[in-house]
């Protein structure tokens, strides 16, 4: 065990606690017997609370201080010792805090949300395992350990998506998530091999130390990016994320919004030194494509969780674009803010679903509670959720005074400076990013409008009660965390808390404020459009433009992307799956017909030879004599010739 001694033992204990307690929660949840499974919903959040608290100790004592590392020898690969160690710097400490904190909140929320579930032990156990493996990704000091965590979050995600395993769709979605992730991971693994071959080490602090911008580094970074594509649901491996919404909503909030999917972005930041310019360009392009697809797709959705899922994809795409632009700080800032407001949005959506579901059970009504077209006017019945939704939604939309505004601002600033003064393809990326922010506002507020405004549709007869306190507390906590205060004191400058060194430009801030307001207006008027079409048509050309955009682009493009998604990307993956199964059948057939067939053929050949040699044995002695003599004569003639 090696560590630098600048930190106190208390710090180390806290660090250890924050990492180990989620694991302990996993073990305890399994250890508690079936009879006392209710106890799990106490122990697990409690353990996570302690973990979150101790991680905040870690965070505050480390922030802006020396990086801390601690390592144990894990195993030796042909003379190269491989460590299992923790590497803490600002980045990972922040991430540690975010993960444990949100995880705790979601544990807490789950007490209410998952009450009465038959396999609650498994649920909390897997949440614990997930948190632990996420922390492993966050804190690992080498890529192999990180990969271990990487795979383990995939596993726990699999278990949690498929939590309601009686639902065939859930089982399917879980499988899809894991397999698509594995495809990415295979690339990641190749990246590891490249690193191992060329550097002989997986240690994060040695990455990129070889100054050569060699081709292998491009290859290695792109391979690692493959892993990111899988885990962060980037183009083209993004289809699993919307499907993963089959899992319980808190799980979607934790894993598929706040933490795991962001791990990809985090990984790129961690291994940023490895990425060569070419690789970064690829990253940026992939990111912006994903962001656009996600944003347009979100516009065309009617399922709350699907809208949020596409939104997540879009936001992740934005982060990845920022990474590609070299702005890892900005990307991380957005990751940070996104974690809170998106978790909050999911939890709020979960609260809506939970409440409606319970009401539905009482009223024996049957409709899809996740379909926004069935909802409406809920702001009166669920005021708490409404407020929370507005707050976090604003943050998502990037309205000023919200954290989302600041982080998006950081990204846009970085992108513009990356694009440079002259026009190049990079400006297309910037344009894309602006389109995405614009669309984000549109879909966010359209969703809010659908759920909370207007008249109640199918929900009107239901007696909807407010969510329980255990669910409200996390909601409010996260909603507050989506205010600008999380990032900096100044609601317009994003360079205070997190990264004082980050670049900031007032012009961009101003422009984005205008841009957001424009978007907001568009959103507002497009909402109005459905009621006051004539006025808008006559009053503003902008309105007509937005109308046209919403009608032509805002509806068509999502439809196209949806078909692209459903038919082509998914279709392609399905097709590959079909082809795989087909190939499997073909090889199976080959196995039976040829490989086995050869063997059986050999057997029948042997038998055939046997029956030939046997036919001479027909009991006729004269023929015996003939054959014997004849063989000798043939042999003699053959030799004499």
């Amino acid at each position, binding site marked *: 065990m090696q560590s630098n001694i600048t930190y106190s033992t208390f710090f180390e204990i806290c660090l250890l606690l924050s990492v180990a307690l989620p694991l302990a929660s996993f073990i305890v949840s399994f250890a508690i017997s079936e009879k006392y499974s209710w106890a799990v919903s106490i122990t697990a959040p409690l353990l996570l609370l302690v973990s979150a608290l101790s991680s905040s100790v870690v965070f505050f004592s480390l922030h802006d201080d020396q990086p801390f590392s601690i390592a144990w020898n894990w195993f030796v690969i042909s003379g190269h010792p491989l460590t299992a160690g923790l590497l803490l710097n600002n980045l990972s400490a922040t991430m540690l805090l975010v993960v444990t904190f949100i995880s705790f909140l979601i544990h807490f929320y789950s007490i209410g949300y998952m009450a009465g579930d038959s396999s609650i032990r498994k649920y909390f156990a897997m949440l614990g395992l997930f948190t632990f493996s996420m922390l492993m990704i966050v804190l690992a000091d080498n890529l192999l350990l990180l990969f271990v965590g990487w795979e383990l979050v995939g596993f726990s995600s699999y278990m949690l998506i498929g939590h309601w395993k009686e639902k065939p769709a859930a089982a399917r979605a879980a499988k899809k998530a894991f397999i698509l992730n594995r495809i990415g991971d295979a690339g990641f693994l190749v990246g590891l091999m490249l690193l191992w071959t060329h550097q002989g080490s997986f240690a994060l602090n040695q990455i990129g130390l070889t100054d050569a911008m060699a081709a292998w580094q491009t290859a290695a970074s792109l391979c690692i990016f493959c892993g990111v594509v899988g885990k962060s649901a980037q183009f083209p491996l993004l289809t699993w994320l919307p499907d993963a919404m089959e899992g319980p909503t808190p799980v979607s909030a934790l894993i598929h919004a706040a933490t795991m999917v962001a791990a990809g972005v985090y990984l790129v930041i961690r291994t940023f030194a490895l990425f060569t310019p070419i690789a970064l360009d690829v990253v940026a392009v992939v990111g912006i494509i994903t962001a656009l697809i996600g944003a347009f797709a979100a516009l065309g959705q009617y399922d709350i969780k699907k809208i949020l899922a596409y939104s997540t994809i879009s936001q992740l795409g934005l982060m990845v674009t920022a990474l590609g632009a070299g702005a890892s700080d900005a990307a991380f800032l957005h990751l940070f803010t996104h974690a809170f407001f998106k978790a909050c949005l999911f939890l709020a959506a979960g609260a809506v679903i939970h409440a409606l579901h319970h009401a539905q059970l009482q009223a024996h009504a049957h409709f899809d509670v996740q379909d926004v077209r069935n909802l409406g006017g809920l702001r009166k019945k669920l005021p708490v959720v409404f407020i929370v939704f507005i707050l976090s939604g604003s943050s998502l939309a990037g309205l000023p005074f919200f954290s989302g505004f600041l982080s998006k601002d950081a990204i846009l600033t970085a992108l513009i400076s990356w694009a440079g003064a002259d026009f190049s393809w990079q400006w297309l990326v910037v344009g894309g990013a602006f389109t995405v922010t614009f669309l984000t506002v549109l879909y966010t507020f359209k969703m809010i409008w659908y759920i909370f405004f207007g008249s109640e549709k199918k929900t009107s007869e239901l007696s909807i009660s407010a969510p329980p306190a255990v669910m409200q507390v996390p909601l409010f906590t996260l909603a507050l965390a989506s205010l600008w205060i999380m990032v900096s004191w100044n609601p317009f400058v994003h360079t205070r808390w997190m990264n004082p060194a980050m670049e900031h430009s007032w012009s961009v801030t101003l422009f984005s404020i205008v841009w957001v307001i424009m978007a907001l207006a568009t959103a507002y008027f497009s909402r109005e459009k459905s009621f006051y079409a004539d006025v808008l048509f006559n009053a503003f050309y902008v309105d007509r433009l937005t109308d046209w955009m919403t009608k032509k682009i805002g509806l068509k493009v999502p439809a196209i992307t949806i078909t692209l998604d459903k038919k082509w990307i998914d279709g392609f993956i399905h097709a590959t799956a079909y082809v795989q199964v087909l190939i499997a059948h073909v090889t199976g057939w080959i196995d039976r017909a040829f490989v086995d067939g050869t063997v059986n053929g050999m057997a029948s050949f042997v038998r055939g030879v046997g029956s030939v040699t046997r036919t001479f044995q027909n009991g006729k002695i004269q023929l015996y004599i003939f054959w014997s003599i004849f063989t000798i*004569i043939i042999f003699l003639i053959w030799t004499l010739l």
Partner: protein
Amino acid sequence: MTLTSFMFYFFEIVAALSAVALALSRNVFYGALLLIVCLLALAGIYVLAFAEFIAVTQILIYAGGILVVIIFGIMLTTKISEKPLAVEHTYLLSGILAAGGCFGLLIYVLSKEYFLTTGVQQLPSSPVNGIQTIGVSMFSKYVLPFEVAGILLLISLVGASVVASTIKSKKE
């Protein structure tokens, strides 16, 4: 052509013809008689090859012994079944193939061989010597095969009697 060489080729032709006739013959009884002719012709050849004792033995044992036994056999087997003595041929093609191949091969190989060059020392001095030598070597050099032949005869007689005894017991 001297008388001896005429005799020699006469015997050769007789032997060859009778053998071929035997092969063509469809009657067992004629076959046995043809074989006797052939064997007698061979005996004649033996005489001309300075093997008088062999010739005599040939006539006595083969013509007089073995073939009589065979003819008895023919009579025994045909009498019971009361079928004609005619014999059909089977596997004619195989037989011709094997025999023809064998004959061709032998003729081919033999025609390439020159036995006289290998080591004819001299003509035998006197025919008397032949029989005497045979007698002597029978009890000196060849005493072991001779004794073993005795055992062979004994055991075949015993064996034949065992086989024959079962025939009798079956009949009863």
